[in-house]
Each structure stands twice: as structure tokens, then as C-alpha cells.
């Protein structure tokens, strides 16, 4: 059986009521007493057009929040047979560490009960509370035994750059359990969404995500994470992709001049990224023109780097084909099957087990 995998699908949390059965009893009562009725990130206002395509919304006009509805789209219309759920419910934005831990646990347990248990084709990312490195590691350890969790999810705008050593215990836990680190568009909002302050538009904040991916990669490479955590794979989810070549040329150039500042980086950053980083292919910031797309695909080393993703239900494309225009068939095949299976050990193991 040839598995075809969608590497980025978003399950919406419909309301705090959905999480309540999975919350510790104190937190369930406490949050209710305080009138806490859920969270949404400023990056994904549920009613904003990009947050969910019109025909993917539920009867109430909201982003789809149950396994059946999402499954009907991704398995029914996009023709895949596995999908990885990346919940963007923003626990990382909270400032109360204990509250964040409680909500992250509830969220992951809700995903397990209401999604993974309901549809065997679904896989999911573990959402970790970055407010505490210890708690984040504990959450990975708590869930690692369940092979349906296939990666760990963090936002591109971390509280501090992801390469810094304070985070390494989390990345080591990822590697220990064969869980790639998925860096997804989003922010913990410990700083403005641009490095020059708070922008005036959601559109600017969307644009700024690709800048965050550049900075995150620069941090991971210069801090030496890939050497220090040899089995770690990083997946950039919803990054836009096409910023990558110019970024790599620039960082290679600076590295040639500044190597002694980071002497543990012993080969060109581009070589490290090529070996250890993968990117989901939706959105794909490019024109429709096939000749231009072909040039870009060659610059990003697409046959090795790209993973198929619909980014469901975000509005990235119209119709039923999530593949950006101009992608050749053999590339699509690699994106759908070979690359996800080589990126996600847990998908591979489950595939073997199913077969």
C-alpha cells in the first residue's frame, strides 16, 4: 500500500466546553469561575477569510472542528490516506505557566479522544507548553508511547529563538522519541510580529511569518542544534517556502566571514538545512507561471525538501487540488509519499504495521 500523507491539517477547538472534560477538575472549575471561554490567536481570527475557506466552514460559519468534517475534505476531496493534525490553539501565548500546562494536556487529550480515536487515518502533533521547558518535556514523555503522535509543534515566533540552549531538552525529547520538530506559522507573542514593531494589518503579520522562519532557522543553525541533537529533524510548516534560497545564500555568506563566532558550525548552513530541514508546500509563495515555478523548485531542492500539505482549512487554494500549479507529477509523488515517510519515522512504522 502506498501511503499518501497530508502533513498539515488544522483541527479547530470549537469552544472551551470541548476541552473541559479533559481538564484537571481544579482547572475546569477555576477557568469556568473566571469566565475563561477559550483562546484564539491574532494570527488566525476564525472569521478572517484566510483562517478557513468558505466551503470548509461548518454550518455556523466556523472553521471545522470535528473529525468527520475534516476527514470528508482531506480524505474525501484531496485523495490522501493519512493526515497530520497541527492544532493552532495558542496555549503558548499564555503567561500563567500552570494554566498553559493544564490547557496543553487537555488539548492533546481532546485530540486523542475526539480525533485520533475516531478516525484511524489521522495523526497528530503534540502541543507543548513552552512556558516551561520541564513541562514541555514531560508532556512529550506522557504522550510518546502513542504512535499516532508523530511530531511536536511550536510556533515560528518562539518566546526566544529556538536554537538557544534553554530549549534543547525539548528538542532532545523530540529526537529521543523519533518526533520531528514542527515549526508552524504563529507566535507566542513575547515580541511584536515584526522586528520593527506591531504592524497595522493582519496581512503584514501573515507576511512576517516567513521572516520568523528565517530567523528560527538562523538560530537553529548558528546555535549548533543540529550537531548537538543529531537525530532531530525539523519541519517548517506553512512557511511559504520560496524565501529559502535567498536566505541560505545570505547565511552561507555571513558564515564564511563569521565562522569563529560559532566554530561548531563546521559546514555551510545550506548543507545542514538541506540535510535536516523539510518544508510543507502549502502555502507556496510563487506565481502560477510554470517556468518560474520550475526554477524555484530547483533552487529549493524540492524533490528532497518538500512535503505535501493542504493546510486545511486555511484558504490557500480553490478547488480540490492542494498542489500548487506547476508542480510536476513525479515531485508530487515524492511529496505525498516518499518524503513524509522518510521525515516521519512514526508514519513509516505505522505503515509497516498496517501492511
Amino acid at each position: 500500500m502506498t501511503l499518501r500523507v497530508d502533513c498539515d491539517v488544522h483541527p479547530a477547538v470549537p469552544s472551551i466546553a470541548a476541552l473541559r472534560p479533559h481538564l484537571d477538575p481544579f482547572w475546569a472549575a477555576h477557568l469556568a469561575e473566571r469566565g475563561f471561554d477559550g483562546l484564539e490567536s491574532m494570527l488566525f481570527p476564525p472569521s478572517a477569510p484566510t483562517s478557513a475557506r468558505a466551503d470548509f466552514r461548518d454550518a455556523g460559519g466556523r472553521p471545522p472542528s470535528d473529525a468527520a468534517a475534516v476527514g470528508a475534505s482531506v480524505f474525501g476531496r484531496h485523495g490522501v490516506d493519512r493526515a497530520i493534525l497541527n492544532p493552532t490553539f495558542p496555549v503558548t501565548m499564555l503567561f500563567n505557566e500552570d494554566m498553559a500546562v493544564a490547557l496543553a494536556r487537555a488539548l492533546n487529550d481532546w485530540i486523542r479522544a475526539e480525533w485520533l480515536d475516531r478516525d484511524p487515518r489521522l495523526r497528530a502533533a503534540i502541543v507543548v507548553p513552552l512556558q516551561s521547558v520541564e513541562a514541555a518535556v514531560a508532556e512529550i514523555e506522557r504522550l510518546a508511547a502513542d504512535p499516532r503522535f508523530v511530531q511536536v509543534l511550536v510556533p515560528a515566533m518562539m518566546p526566544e529563538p529556538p536554537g538557544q540552549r534553554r530549549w534543547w531538552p525539548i528538542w532532545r525529547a523530540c529526537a529521543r522519541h523519533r518526533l520531528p520538530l514542527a515549526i508552524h506559522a504563529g507566535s507566542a507573542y513575547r515580541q511584536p510580529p515584526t522586528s520593527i514593531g506591531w504592524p497595522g494589518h493582519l496581512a503584514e503579520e501573515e507576511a512576517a511569518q516567513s521572516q520568523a522562519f528565517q530567523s528560527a532557522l538562523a538560530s537553529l543553525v548558528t546555535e549548533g542544534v543540529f550537531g548537538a541533537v543529531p537525530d532531530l529533524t525539523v519541519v517548517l510548516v506553512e512557511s511559504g517556502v520560496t524565501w529559502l534560497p535567498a536566505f541560505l545564500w545570505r547565511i552561507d555568506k555571513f558564515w564564511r566571514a563569521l565562522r569563529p563566532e560559532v566554530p561548531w558550525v563546521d559546514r555551510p548552513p545550506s548543507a545542514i538545512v538541506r540535510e535536516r530541514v523539510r518544508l510543507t508546500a502549502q502555502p507556496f509563495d510563487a506565481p502560477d507561471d510554470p517556468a518560474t515555478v520550475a526554477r524555484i523548485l530547483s533552487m529549493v531542492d524540492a524533490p528532497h525538501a518538500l512535503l505535501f500539505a493542504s493546510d486545511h482549512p486555511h484558504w490557500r487554494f480553490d478547488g480540490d487540488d492542494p498542489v500548487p500549479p506547476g508542480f510536476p507529477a513525479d515531485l508530487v509523488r515524492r511529496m505525498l509519499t516518499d518524503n513524509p515517510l522518510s521525515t516521519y519515522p512514526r508514519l513509516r512504522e505505522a505503515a509497516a504495521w498496517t501492511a
Partner: protein
Amino acid sequence: MDSVTPDLIAAAGTRLSLVDCDIHPKLAAPEDLRPFLSRRWWEHLTTIGPRQRHGFHKGVPYPKAQPLACRRDAWPPGGGPPGSDVPFIREQLLDLYGIDFAVMNPLAPTGQGDTNAAFSAAMASANNDWQVEAMVAAEPRLRASVVVPYEDGPAAAAEIRRRAGDRRFAHVLMLSRTAEPMGQRRYWPVFEAACEAGLPLGIHVFGYSGWPMTNGGFPSFYLEEGVEHAASTQALVASLIFEGVFARFPTLRILLIEAGFAWIPALAWRLDRIWEKARHGELQDVREPPSAILKRHFWVSTQPVEEPPAFADLETTLDWIGWDRVLFASDYPHWDFDDPRQAIPRRLGEARRRMILSGNGRAFYGI
């Protein structure tokens, strides 16, 4: 091996009249500014000193790769810091490469981005006087830029109006890391006055926004700071376009300096994709694709020139940007200096090379 033979042929080859849109003049000593500052601000400079949006009274958040971030061979034999000695600039840059129009972008201490608005304005004005009286007067191939206290829009506009019509000034200078995204209305008086004066706006990387150096927090290394300048420039371009600056100031022309250039196509594609989804909603005031606005209103300097392993990728990137939008910059005397003979190599083709080294700069500055 890419190159072990001397490129002496290139050195001795066609002598173009080059336009260099980024060199950095430096005060030999703070006293150079004294004639141009009131007693009040001279005392402020020498007691309180500059107050940027970071904590370092001495030093900078990310110590440079080399002293003063300069080429080690750029220290004038007669003393003083690199960029302070006109005869040495002549010898090491203007005469050596045949540059006959070099735009000076003074960086510090210019008062730009200072938290004290009145001091910022006084320093900017003093720097402008110093550029023309100490530098341009001594070497007419040098041109000044109008240093403006950009965090205070009206004061910046007043400084531009003071210099309007003075051909010794080539452009208005802002730094990329403003306190808020550059499209926001507090900066519009700068754009308005620049358009009125018929001066383009040069935006040079650096400055201190007061926010973390990346949108994911403060990085650790100078290497990251260098790489990040491209990202913050991307944010400012998005802000200028989406805030509607060019609809309001249709004659505004912007040169992005020292941010590299290879990231421009991907940014344009990204902004277009976002605009397509928001053009009837949040971005309904932006009436045309961002890529079209970018193409019409932005130019970019070459340095630090990207060096992709496949030369064809550089050419393709320039095809995407437009060969007429790219201006040579050396960044002299800084360490990441680009030598025009190597950075803009002959294999680009003579016609295109001439555009980048000379023609585009002439058109942009109206020489």
C-alpha cells in the same frame, strides 16, 4: 577551485564611471560636529551622549566582526577612523575604481533613532552640515544624504525642506529598524517632504527599533543580526505597501541599502498571494498587486551581494527583480565591502554590468 588566478584583466579593463550608492563617512572625532551644534546640544552629546533604544552606552548589542565593522586595510595612514580621511577615500575607493558619484550614508553618531527627539533633530542637522562642509567641499565626487530624525516626522520633514534644492544631497536617509513599521503614519511627513523636494529615500539597514532583533526574540550572535537585516527590511516593505504609502505619495522612490537583494522576488510573490485573498477585505485600499507597487517604487543596492553556488541562480534572481532596479553599492569602508570588479562580474554581460555599476544609479539620482 573557484578562483586562484588574479583577476587583473578585470582590474585593468573597461573603466566605467561608477555610481556607488553606499559609502560610510566617519567623523575623525566628535569635535568635528561641534561647529554645527549649539552649545546646549554639544554639552548633551558630551555628557549624556546618544541614547538609542538599547542598553549599551558603550558597545553595541552584537559586537562587530572587526574593529568599527571596518575593513582592516581602511584605516587611514595619517590616523583617524576609516572613512574620515578624504584623500584616503580618494585613493582607496574613488580613484581606484573610477567612482565619480558616491553617496555618503553617515551612521553614528547621527542622532537617528535617538530617544531624545530634540537632540536627534540637532544631531541630524549637524551631520548634514558636516557632510557638505567637511566632505563634499573637499571632494565633489562625494554626495551627502539628508540625515533625518525620522522618529519625529515633522522635525524630519523640516530638515528635508531645509536641504531641498541643494544638489549636494542625493537622497534622504532613514535606517531600517524604526520604532514602528515604516508605513505607519508617524513617518508620512518624511515621505511627503522627500517627494516635495524631489529626493528619493534611501533606507539603510540597522538602527535600533527597541524591539527584539527578530520577531522570535533576541538572537545570540552577530551572524544572526547580519542575516536578520534582510528579514526586517522585508517587514518594512510590507508595511509601506499595505499601509497605502504609495497611493498617498505616488512619486516616492525608495532605495533599499545593504539588505542584499535576492529575497525580493519571494517577498513580492508572498505579498501578492496575501493581497489576492485580502483585496476585497482588509486590503481593499491597496488597489494593485504588491509586486507592481514594489516594482514601481523600489530600487535595491547590491551589497552584500548574494553568492549562490550556481551563478545562473544569481542571474535568474536579477531577471525576476529587473536589471534596471539594481544599483551598485560598495559599503566602503565596512568589512563586508563589495569590490565592483568581483561583486558585479563580467560574466553578467557588459550591458547589464554597466546598468548596475553606473546607468541605474545615474537614472535614479538624475545625474
